């Protein structure tokens, strides 16, 4: 076995070069002043102070979190029943459904999002149908609705797959046992299936909330040019404005928020268990 250990060295080197160093660079940029060269680094917290004292940035952050939260909730509400159906279907059908869920992910996200623009635009498919049925055309594209729709559409497969795999792992004899002890389908779901599938929901939340909160392509395309989420702000800082130091600082702030939210979700999961245990004591 010892000899195989050496095989990991190239990967460790790769990870160091491609992940750790760029991250350290971001930290370095965030903590230094604009216009440094390598010889004279001037450390500062200015970039952070600027972010937290500007109401516009803070409100953008707030909206981003709100949209990401909404997206996550919708992904759970829509994804759970779908995952439940898939997990309870026959193996052959199950494979087909999983294929159908993952199939769109094989296509470039940009292309898929553009397709939605075609459907939602003022003279797109939906408004065409509405007009045919004699309704007033609605403004759909470039709204919060469109942004959330785009995000839910793009991220829901992650939620479904996570929940489905935790439901599929569920031991059938536990369901029999719940039935046997007097639980009808509803109680059985609430007391056994749902709590035991929570780990899948939690990892689904992580996989949906994280990309949603920092996404910039979807809000740009579905929300229109003026639509700003925190991901777009970071993108602007790097690409349009050219302030890498400020952009790096915002990235770091986002990273912290994401880490904290992950920590809270995991904690919630565990304290749920602990709470249940305490209730048992009473």
């Amino acid at each position: 076995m010892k000899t195989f250990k050496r095989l990991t060295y190239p990967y460790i080197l790769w990870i160091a070069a491609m992940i750790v160093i760029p991250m350290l660079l971001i930290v370095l940029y965030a903590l230094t002043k604009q216009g440094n060269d390598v010889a004279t680094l001037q450390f500062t917290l200015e970039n952070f102070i600027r972010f937290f004292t500007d109401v516009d940035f803070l409100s953008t952050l707030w909206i981003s979190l709100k949209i990401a939260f909404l997206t996550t909730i919708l992904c759970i509400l829509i994804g759970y029943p779908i995952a439940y159906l898939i997990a309870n279907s026959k193996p052959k059908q199950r494979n087909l459904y999983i294929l159908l869920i993952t199939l769109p992910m094989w296509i470039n996200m940009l292309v898929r999002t553009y397709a939605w623009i075609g459907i939602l635009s003022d003279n797109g498919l939906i408004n065409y149908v509405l007009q045919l049925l004699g309704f007033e055309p609605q403004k759909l594209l470039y709204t919060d609705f469109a942004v959330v729709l785009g995000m839910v559409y793009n991220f829901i497969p992650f939620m479904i797959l996570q929940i489905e795999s935790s439901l599929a792992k569920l031991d059938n004899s536990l369901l029999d046992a719940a039935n046997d002890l007097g639980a009808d389908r509803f109680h059985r779901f609430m007391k056994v299936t749902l709590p035991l599938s929570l780990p899948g929901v939690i990892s689904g939340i992580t996989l949906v909330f994280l990309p949603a909160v920092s996404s910039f392509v979807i809000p740009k395309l579905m929300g229109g040019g003026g639509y700003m989420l925190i991901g777009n702000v970071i993108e602007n800082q790097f690409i349009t404005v050219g302030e890498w130091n400020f952009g790096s600082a915002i990235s770091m702030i986002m990273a912290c928020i994401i880490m904290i939210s992950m920590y809270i979700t995991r904690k919630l999961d565990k304290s749920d268990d602990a709470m249940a245990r305490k209730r048992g004591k009473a």
Partner: protein
Amino acid sequence: MEMNEAKRLIEFKNIVKDFDGQIVLKGISLDIYENEFVTLLGPSGCGKTTLLRILAGFLKQNEGRVIFDGEEISDLPPYKRELNTVFQKYALFPHMNVYENIAFGLKIKKMSKDVIEQKVMKMLKLINLEGFEQRNVTLLSGGQQQRIAIARALVNEPKVLLLDEPLAALDLKLRKEMQYELKRIQQEVGITFIYVTHDQEEALTMSDKIVVMKDGEIQQVGSPTDIYNEPQNRYVANFIGESNIIPGIMLEDKRVRFDDIDFDCVDVGFKEHEPVDVVIRPEDLDIVAQDSGKMNGVVKSVLFKGVHYEIMVETVPGTTVSVKMNVTKEHDVASSDAKERISANHFFVDLEDVKELNDAEIIARADAQAWDPENDEYLSISKIEYELKEEVGNYPVTFSTAGGTAVTVNIMVVEQKYVENPKKNEAISAFNFFKSVDEIKESVALDTDLKTWANAQGWKLSDESIVEIEDVEYDFDPDTISPGVYQVTFSTKGRVFKVHTTDMSEEGAEIALNFYPEDIHVMSKIGY
């Protein structure tokens, strides 16, 4: 009838169940009474678990009715049935602690908190796990999980507790402890237990009533002593306890014949000269001095089993045939330029089989091979020359390669040597054969190879069905064998009785077996 005393609680009426056309239960009818410990016993696949799941409501029968406490319950969902199940792998809820697991059923019924607490504590006391309320169930031992599963079911005060192989996952010692524990719990709570197992010892230890099942049918229903002492057929006798089962003929009431000897017995009600199976339990046989018992015999083997010895005694010897094995040195022939080598064996063939011989068969029987000694690659044998007549005698056969290297051996046509044993209704045959020293030394499973080389076969005289050759004996040491002629003896199994006794016997001792008429149990052959 016992019906007057105990109340009938469950009635299975002609239950039929199939899975995708495969019939698992073939019309089961069974009554179960109040406060009984009933065991459904049978090998895996006999339908016992299916029957239990039908009663619990997880499966629905294709035909027949299930009556519980006088009411048909076939259409009732599991959560409305007044019975609870202990599952094979416990099926405890991993996200709940011990207390919550046990309280599950009570909470569903919306009982008040203090009532739930009282009942759960009572259960924990019953299963000797007081103080375990807050424990994580996944961290408990198998035996503890098992007891919690039992408590979780019993706390609902069911009229019947179903147990699906609940001890299968426990180790032997724990299993024994749990057997007593289960019996104690059943007597304490005083409800019906229906217990599914494939373990006959478990069934005998705990049950009031055993239901022996096989292939979706009930073979016998009775108390452990009934089932053990009076098995209804060969299957039940074999499944429950150890037994000697001998085919015999019922001469008249209380008189049975087997192995050409007539014995007194206590069984009645068979037809005259009806073929029957006779059971004698190993512990009912006594070993006594030769000529002072019912049958003389020879001790074949002695095994120490802890409490007793298991002694195999042969009362009727098997059928035996001996053949000669000619062992030669390496017998390959080299070509003049030493570039090729070729080898073959002499072989014997039965007069009747001569006309079936062809080139391929002869190459195979003579084990003819040619090869290049440089690189050990096989060469093909391109020519076979022989003249065969359907008469006893020796006929030379010459194998040669394309390169002209040749070897000549003899095909020896003989009349097959076989031994008939009408007393045991069997015959056995084998051929003399030729082998090289190396072939014998290299053999990994010599007994099997000897059987193949000698083409040793045994068969029943009546229907020519195969009789297994049990014993191969030879007078050489395979590790140090040198060229020469050796004797190999093949024999079928004789009539061997298994005896359980606390008295030691010597292997090879000539003794006699003794038993009493009541030790013989005669079973009808029908039903198997």
